[in-house]
């Protein structure tokens, strides 16, 4: 059992050892070891030509990653948080996501941008956002949101090996979460969801930390005789619709769980795809649990009220089942 932080660290270490073209730069990655400690010790072990600090200037960090990738490197850039990725959004959306297409397929940009997303640490409204739907909207990007140490490691390794730009979004509250990680080479493919818990009564579709919330709710529901299946999307783009549909065809009910805001969100997209492809399999309308649509407040009680938890998930599940009976 290792932590999410350790799993990510191992992924970086293994990939840097495997491929000399992999290098890390970004905010506070050397002496500080990364704002959340993921890169701790890497500069010492690999040297400061491969792990080095950048100024707090997200535009040039992301843009230098694009250029470095065009120049033959496989950079892993650290932006500290997804909130700061807004300062790099032009580089991510107008540059990284366009190189392959706009120049007629002559060149791709194999880069990873790591950033922390999500709330729950009382950091108030500019440091607690779940902005992944904005980036997942964009063709040309890949967006990955691991929930567990094993997926964190396997997805980060795959992201580094991938030839396209990947936005790798970690969750602030997951770094200390422990989990089993397979020994040896462990890769998780991008664009593949995973059934994290099997069940017959309802499908809970979640990603990132909300996967753990959904699993917690499913355990509690099980004590009441309700068996929920939990699908962890893991990647938001490419989006694995098939795994979701297969589950819904089995359970005939679906509830999406996301920390991001509801309007134009991931849940909306999933619900839409389910009704387009599996309408006749549904026994009830699809429901969404999302972050409350407000800027995240600082006060603990207010912030907690804005972020979905197992109780909200359980309540929604029960309401859904009450419509049709199990």
């Amino acid at each position, binding site marked *: 059992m290792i932590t999410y932080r350790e799993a990510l660290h191992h992924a970086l270490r293994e990939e840097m050892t495997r491929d000399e073209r992999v290098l890390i730069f970004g905010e506070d990655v050397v002496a500080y070891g990364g704002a959340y400690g993921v890169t701790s010790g890497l500069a010492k072990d690999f040297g400061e030509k491969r792990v080095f600090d950048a*100024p707090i200037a997200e535009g040039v960090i992301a*843009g230098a990653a694009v250029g470095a990738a065009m120049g033959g490197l496989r950079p892993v850039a650290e932006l500290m948080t997804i909130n700061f990725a807004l300062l790099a959004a032009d580089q991510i959306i107008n540059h990284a996501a366009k190189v392959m297409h706009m120049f007629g397929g002559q060149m791709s940009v194999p880069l990873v941008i790591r950033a922390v997303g999500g709330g729950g640490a009382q950091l108030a409204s500019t440091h607690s956002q779940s902005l992944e739907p904005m980036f997942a909207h964009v063709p040309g990007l890949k967006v990955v949101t691991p929930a567990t140490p094993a997926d964190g490691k396997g997805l980060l390794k795959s992201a580094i090996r991938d030839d396209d730009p990947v936005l790798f979004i970690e969750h602030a509250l997951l770094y200390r979460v422990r989990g089993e990680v397979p020994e040896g080479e462990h890769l998780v493919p991008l664009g593949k969801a995973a059934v994290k818990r099997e069940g017959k009564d309802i499908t809970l579709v979640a990603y990132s930390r909300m996967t753990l919330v959904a699993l917690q709710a499913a355990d509690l529901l099980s004590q009441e005789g309700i068996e929920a299946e939990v699908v962890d999307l893991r990647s938001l783009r490419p989006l694995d619709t098939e795994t979701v549909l297969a589950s819904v065809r089995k359970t005939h009910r679906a509830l999406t769980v996301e920390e991001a805001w509801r309007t134009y969100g991931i849940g909306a997209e999933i619900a839409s795809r389910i009704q387009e492809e599996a309408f006749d399999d549904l026994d009830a309308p699809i429901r969404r649990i999302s972050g409350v649509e407000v800027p995240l407040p600082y006060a603990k009680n207010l912030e907690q009220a804005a972020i979905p938890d197992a109780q909200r998930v359980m309540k929604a599940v029960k309401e859904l089942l009450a419509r049709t009976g199990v």
Partner: protein
Amino acid sequence: MGGKTAAKVGQSGLDKKTLLNFLHQMLLIRKFEDKAGELYARGKIAGFLHLYNGEEAVAVGAISALEPHDLVITHYRDHGHAIARGLDAKRLMAELFGKATGVAKGHGGSMHFFDASLGFYGGWAIVGGHLPLAVGLGLASNTLRKNQVILCIFGDGGTNIGYFYESLNVAKLWNVPVVFLCENNLYGMGTALHRASAIREVYRKAAVFDIPAERVDGMDVLAMREATVKAVAHARGGGGPYFLEAMTYRFRGHSMADPILYRDKSEVEEWKQRDPIILFQQRLREEGVLTPQDLEQMERETDELVADAVKFAEESPEPPLSDLHEDIYANP
């Protein structure tokens, strides 16, 4: 105004063939641009079209200082740079026509020329957005010991955005081999430099980062070459970034949609007196390097190259509709 001007042609150390090739390239750019403007008016070319007329000496002089393995990365007024770097005029014109044979398969158009095989890394259309990319390319050159110099070209309008300062700062910090070349044509679209920049001598903005920076006469192809040779040697020798400000002028509008209401006719006429092609022709003639026959032949050759390019573009197929879904991902 001004900037460093070159001495006599004869003192340039360049042979006749090279000198005539400079003129040939400048003429080809001018004719390519005039033809593109004409075809735009006739509806053959769409989108935005930013012509390079008047600035030819900057591209030709500066790019001549590079080695084949060096890289050019530039802004959206990119036709002149592409031609100077040796991209095929046929495939450039085909790109303007939105044809499958274009340098970017018709995906990019005028603002996004690209040819990786010639080290021409775009054609970028977000003002200032490619400066960070140049830093990254320089980083790759250093890390992978490629001994490459990256020539990064942008306009005066690109020196007021955060990217400019972020990139110069990091370029110096990381000691990357990037030659920053500002084409100062005095206007960012229709806004005069003095209305947009608190500092009118653009090179001074680089000097604050302790990056060697100088102003060059951008209407003088030999001055451009001389300055860029020096800048490239500095970068290649491990000295880090270098900054050049080329004083130049665009003879036509910002784009084809521009009615040019923001500058006086007298100003335009004054600059046209310093047309880089006419000036260079005069100097070559005065020093006996260019004969009337040479010029006549060159005019004919460049006319033919442009005519061939148009013919090729006209006859090329459109991209197949199946191409709509191509080239989004390398690993779909």
